[in-house]
């Protein structure tokens, strides 16, 4: 067996059905098969599972086809049947079934047995990776199990025991019910700055960064800085978005992502689920003031914003990032590559998600930004450089070391 990278720290886990299978007429049978699969893991661990009918849950169960909201699209009937995420925050533990499969729950039906697949996937959701033991439930290839007689292989039991301890077969473990989190005093936060005042040059996060016509543009809210090889222009202070980009429609109050298109040097701004195409600092003639929907790029309807757009120095291709997912852009078609995308951001090892901004600098290197820090990417090793993250303000704004505090205090 192989253990995954994480395990649950708590013993009482909640699960919730986000969607049911469209191909199974009876949702009660779906629930039953999946609940039974969890019950089997209860027998060999000290874990307990409770269904949550609404709100947040540790393990969110979903049936989806092709793109279904993560970076691992399904592939139609056959091939990939399901996947699950190892324990953790956000999508950790979430378990997804390909709704293009012909799911069945009865012994006599022909199709893919939901219970058998669910037991395997919940192994991942609890922290197990694949095993090369052919009769283990964690063997990656599909095998139908007889539900009434189902029992784990010793390989599975040994694996899960490594994570959550051994359970004596005669003892039914009891686990304390979940308790309300202790009431903690809210942390004191500094008084918020007036939203109309410009951000602090040496103490802020960035929404978007791009290299446009040889200069770096850094965007934050309705403000932006501009810098050339010598440093920040305009007296180091940010300018209003609409002062520099005076073709920018009034309703655009922030930029999520921006890049300069290589083929025609047009500048593409992304704000929420709309985009705007500029020629220099003017909206392209005839381009609608209300922008165009980002679905023009072939992105799914449920994408609310683009976190970053960048050109990767390794292959000079342009990528769009949102949350844990990214797409490669087909520049000629001006649409994302349809096959095998979105992909999971895990490929870009060490890049934090969701990322705030990303761009390729004059030095040809790709940089990623989140919070007040930045990461330099190593194309050959396909991971961020070891000595990163580092504070953004020093490198990108030319702020002296430890300038942040003094600027904050003086303001």
């Amino acid at each position: 067996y192989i253990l995954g990278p994480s395990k649950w720290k708590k013993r009482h886990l909640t699960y919730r059905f986000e969607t049911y299978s469209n191909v199974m007429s009876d949702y009660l049978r779906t629930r039953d098969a999946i609940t039974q699969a969890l019950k089997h893991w209860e027998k060999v661990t000290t874990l307990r599972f409770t269904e949550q009918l609404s709100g947040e849950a540790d393990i969110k169960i979903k049936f989806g086809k092709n793109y279904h909201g993560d970076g691992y699209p399904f592939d139609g009937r056959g091939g990939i049947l399901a996947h699950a995420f190892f324990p953790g925050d956000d999508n950790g533990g979430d378990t997804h079934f390909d709704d293009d499969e012909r799911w069945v729950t009865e012994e006599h039906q022909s199709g893919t047995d939901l219970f058998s697949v669910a037991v395997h996937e919940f192994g991942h959701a609890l922290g197990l990776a694949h095993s090369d033991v052919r009769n283990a439930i964690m063997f990656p290839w599909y095998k139908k199990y007889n539900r009434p007689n189902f029992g784990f292989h010793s390989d599975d039991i040994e694996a899960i025991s490594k994570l959550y301890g051994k359970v004596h077969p005669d003892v039914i473990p009891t686990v304390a019910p979940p308790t309300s989190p202790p009431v903690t005093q809210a942390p004191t936060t500094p008084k918020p700055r007036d939203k109309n005042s410009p951000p602090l040059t040496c103490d802020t996060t960035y929404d978007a960064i791009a290299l446009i016509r040889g200069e770096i543009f850094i965007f934050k809210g309705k403000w932006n800085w501009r810098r050339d090889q010598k440093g920040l222009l305009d007296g180091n202070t940010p300018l209003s978005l609409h002062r520099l980009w005076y073709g920018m429609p009034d309703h655009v109050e922030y930029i999520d992502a921006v890049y300069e298109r290589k083929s025609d040097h047009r500048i593409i701004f992304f704000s929420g689920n709309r985009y705007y195409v500029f020629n220099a600092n003017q909206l392209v003639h005839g381009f609608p003031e209300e922008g165009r929907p980002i679905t023009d790029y072939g992105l799914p309807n449920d994408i609310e914003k683009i976190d970053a757009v960048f050109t990767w120095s390794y292959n000079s291709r342009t990528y769009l990032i949102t949350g844990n997912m990214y797409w490669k852009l087909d520049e000629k078609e001006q649409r994302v590559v349809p096959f095998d995308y979105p992909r999971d951001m895990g490929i870009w090892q060490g890049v934090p998600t969701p990322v705030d901004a990303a761009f390729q600098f004059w030095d040809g290197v790709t940089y990623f930004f989140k919070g007040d820090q930045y990461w330099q990417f190593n194309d050959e090793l396909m991971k961020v450089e070891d000595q990163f993250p580092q504070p953004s303000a020093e490198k990108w704004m030319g702020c002296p070391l430890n300038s942040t505090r003094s600027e904050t205090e003086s303001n």
Partner: protein
Amino acid sequence: IISNGNASVFHEGLQFLIRYGYLPSSDMESGRAELRTAEELGTIIRDFQQFAGLNKTGYLDEATIAQMKAPRCGVQDIRPGYRYSRRRRRR
């Protein structure tokens, strides 16, 4: 590497090996997989064959291709870094 010399089978085989962690996931984006030597790919294919319980031929033979097409879980078999760390321990 492939017993019948079919280029699309070769490409699909590489995609499978990347998707399930036998080749670095970075190969998926950089396209480096197709630049790897036959010896490298042979070793990688043997890794997969061992994991799947197949004969370790080092070739994309019929049994290997059939196993790659069989219904399965979408989670990677080999997690990033696992194969290399295991080899280091063996040395």
